[in-house]
């Protein structure tokens, strides 16, 4: 008993259950250790039911940032919109670091610009 108490003090409160389950092997075998073991196992189960965190999605998750054209359909016919993404002087299509569109939308826009250029719109 004294040995057990000493072990408990040394290990600290958190490792109580571990300490006790480990220390069970050391002292005298027999009924006493069996009783200790049972109580230890019950104690462990109680803590695991109540206090451990429940697995769930992060409730504070913010919705992802959307680009300006997210969810909107890009058409090759609205020349005004497409002309905003090309340079007024050279006519080059602006890169992604300038337009700030997502990958899919940037590709859609560049394809629409090419199409409109070929079709003379």
């Amino acid at each position, binding site marked *: 008993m004294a040995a057990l108490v000493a072990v408990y003090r040394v290990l600290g409160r958190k490792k109580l259950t571990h300490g006790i389950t480990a220390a069970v092997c050391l002292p005298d075998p027999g009924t006493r250790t069996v009783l200790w073991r049972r109580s230890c196992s019950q104690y462990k189960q109680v803590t695991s039911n109540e206090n451990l965190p429940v697995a769930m999605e992060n409730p504070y998750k913010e*919705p*992802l*940032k*959307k*680009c300006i054209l*997210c*969810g909107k*359909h890009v*058409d*090759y*016919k609205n020349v005004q919109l497409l002309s905003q993404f090309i340079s007024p002087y050279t006519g080059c299509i602006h890169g992604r670091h300038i337009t700030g569109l*997502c990958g*899919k*939308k940037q590709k859609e826009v560049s394809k629409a610009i090419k*199409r409109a250029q*070929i*079709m*003379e*719109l």
Partner: protein
Amino acid sequence: MPRYELALILKAMQRRETAAALKRTVEALMDKGAIIRNLENLGERALPYKMSAHSQQHWRGRYFLVDFYAPTTTVQSIMEHLSRDIDVIRPNIVKHPLTQEVKECEGIIPVPLEEKLYAPKKRK
């Protein structure tokens, strides 16, 4: 039947003549077996650059938009027919853009910067 869109650029002509030309093209489409759904007029505009078609040069044109249903095999014959028409400056048939589904774009997924920090060196 899949839907197509015809972006038609007609010569800048008098109203009567444009009407006749349109009627001609529409009838040609229907003869090939296309079912016309809608015809839109985008107005008369100055073309973005000088175009030459059928040994003539144009600076201004009238833009029309025809969406129709057509069987896939007749599309090429329609294109040939339209290119032969002298009033038509430039015909263009594309798949109808509204039939393509708008995929849900969830947003810019933030790239973990740690990966970029330890990125493997690019070898030339």
